[in-house]
């Protein structure tokens, strides 16, 4: 029988913040299969929610994942509003949309930074995270917290955006735009990044459909899905924007999709702020007294794809059942396709490309020798391998002295 090496990555590895265990089965340098193990992040949120009132559930679902701390409350609000049959005032819709799009900008910048770090471009990491800070400042101005915004409630939002803050929002966005453009050019025109990301971790359209992948992962493979357009909610039908789709399906395409989405998001926010400016300050929520018996489903497009919440109520003030499906849960499964056949150093990048969020899905890797059960590589080793490769490519491309 042929010998295979198992490379475990995780569960506590420097590749990603969250704990998860990947096992890469390798034949030489080539990954032939992958397995992953999750559960290090399981907190029993669905069960906790059953003992909370609807108002409290918002604070819990917000803490499913800190990066998408708008998407989960958003989907939950959509589900509850379906049950209670309430119509949200327009002003609340715009405010919700602004918060959700700001979150998309900060989340995509965060991914760009981490992806840069994985391929050994720490400059990209530092840049992207630096330009993300003004967005967090904006959150602080609008909501009072850098993360976990607590803006949502059934029937509207908790806080209004102050009139004098409109200009601040626009000003900060104007500042972020050229920076994001610069970053995009730096990434897209860089020959080394081309060599590292083009043709790596390809997911075909069929793979996406087979694995039901969602969000930017799907859109980078030519699958035109976006909940914001397909199942309109909040202010998305009221503003002009387009869904970004590319065809190649590799890591590069995913980066392009995310960059272009940043600009779409900026334009959506600008339009929303304009609309808010025209309307005089008004109602931002409707009072919802009773939640009737029933069930409702809510969807929202998180930065990583579709978030789905399903709630069953029985007329009391807490959910009887609350089912949550996060986008990474389906996206992570595509590793089976994207990593197999890649070299180990590329596999790390392919793992990072879907921007997996394990807090949402609730998951790391080490490489073990299958004969001796000795650890040969861990997350750190993998990153080093990946960074070395970039360096060799750079050397070959620009000569010795770079």
């Amino acid at each position, binding site marked *: 029988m042929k010998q295979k090496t198992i490379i475990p990555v995780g569960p506590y590895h420097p590749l990603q913040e969250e704990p998860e265990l990947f096992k890469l089965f390798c034949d030489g340098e080539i990954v032939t299969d992958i397995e992953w193990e999750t559960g290090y992040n*399981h907190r029993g949120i669905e069960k906790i929610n059953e003992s909370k009132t609807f108002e409290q559930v918002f604070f819990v679902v917000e803490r499913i994942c800190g990066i998408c701390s708008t998407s989960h409350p958003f989907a939950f609000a959509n589900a509850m509003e379906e049950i209670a049959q309430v119509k949200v005032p327009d002003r609340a819709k715009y405010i919700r949309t602004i918060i959700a799009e700001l979150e998309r900008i900060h989340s995509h910048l965060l991914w760009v930074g981490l992806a840069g770090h994985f391929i050994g471009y720490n400059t990209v990491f*530092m840049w992207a995270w630096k330009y993300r800070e003004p967005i967090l400042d904006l959150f602080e101005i609008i909501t009072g917290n850098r993360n976990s915004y607590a803006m949502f409630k059934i029937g509207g939002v908790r806080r209004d955006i102050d009139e004098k803050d409109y200009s601040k929002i626009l000003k900060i966005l104007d500042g972020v735009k050229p920076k994001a453009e610069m970053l995009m050019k730096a990434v897209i025109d860089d020959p080394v990044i081309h060599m590292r990301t083009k043709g790596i971790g390809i997911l075909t359209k069929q793979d996406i459909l087979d694995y039901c992948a969602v969000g930017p992962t799907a859109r980078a493979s030519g699958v035109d899905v976006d909940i914001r357009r397909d199942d309109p909610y909040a202010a998305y039908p009221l503003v002009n924007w387009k869904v970004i789709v590319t065809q190649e399906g590799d890591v590069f395409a995913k980066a392009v999709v995310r960059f272009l989405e940043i600009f779409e998001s900026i334009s959506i926010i600008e339009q929303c702020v304009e609309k808010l400016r025209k309307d005089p300050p008004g109602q931002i929520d409707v009072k919802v007294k009773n939640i009737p018996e029933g069930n409702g489903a809510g969807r929202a497009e998180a930065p990583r794809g579709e978030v789905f919440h399903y709630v069953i109520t029985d007329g009391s003030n807490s959910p009887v059942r609350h089912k949550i499906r996060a986008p990474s849960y389906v996206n992570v499964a595509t590793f089976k396709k994207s990593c197999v056949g890649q070299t180990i150093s590329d596999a790390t990048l392919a793992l990072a490309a879907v921007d997996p969020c394990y*807090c949402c899905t609730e998951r790391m890797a080490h490489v073990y020798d299958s004969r001796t059960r000795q650890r040969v590589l861990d997350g750190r080793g993998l990153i080093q391998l990946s960074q070395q490769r970039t360096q060799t490519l750079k050397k070959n491309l620009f000569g010795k002295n770079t």
Partner: protein
Amino acid sequence: MGIKSYCFKKSLWLYHFAGASCNNCDIEVLDCLTPRYDVERFGMLLIGSVRHADVLLVAGSINKKCKSRLLEVYHQAPKPLVVVAIGACGITGGVFAEGNTFAGPVDKIIPVDVYIPGCPPKPEAILAGIVNFLNKS
């Protein structure tokens, strides 16, 4: 000068352990490294292996599955070691304390030196927490 203060006099190396967290605390820890806060100017460095660490940052609640891992990480670390519990989750379990998988706040599992409250604490708060501890010891 005791051995403890001697050990923590110069550049501290940090190791970050994310329990069953919501990611926010982890992102804020990473944020400390990036240009705006830039802890590297104090010689602090986030490193990939706890065997080289002076400070163990624990963020997030601890569930049954990661409890044994946290103990393993703690035992691998060289002593003396500063253990910092970050965020409401690290200190008490926060919103997840009622969960059926919750395995106790960090200080029930390993000794904790510094508590940094907040959900999530701001990067400034994380830095202030560690600096305060160092000034004291």
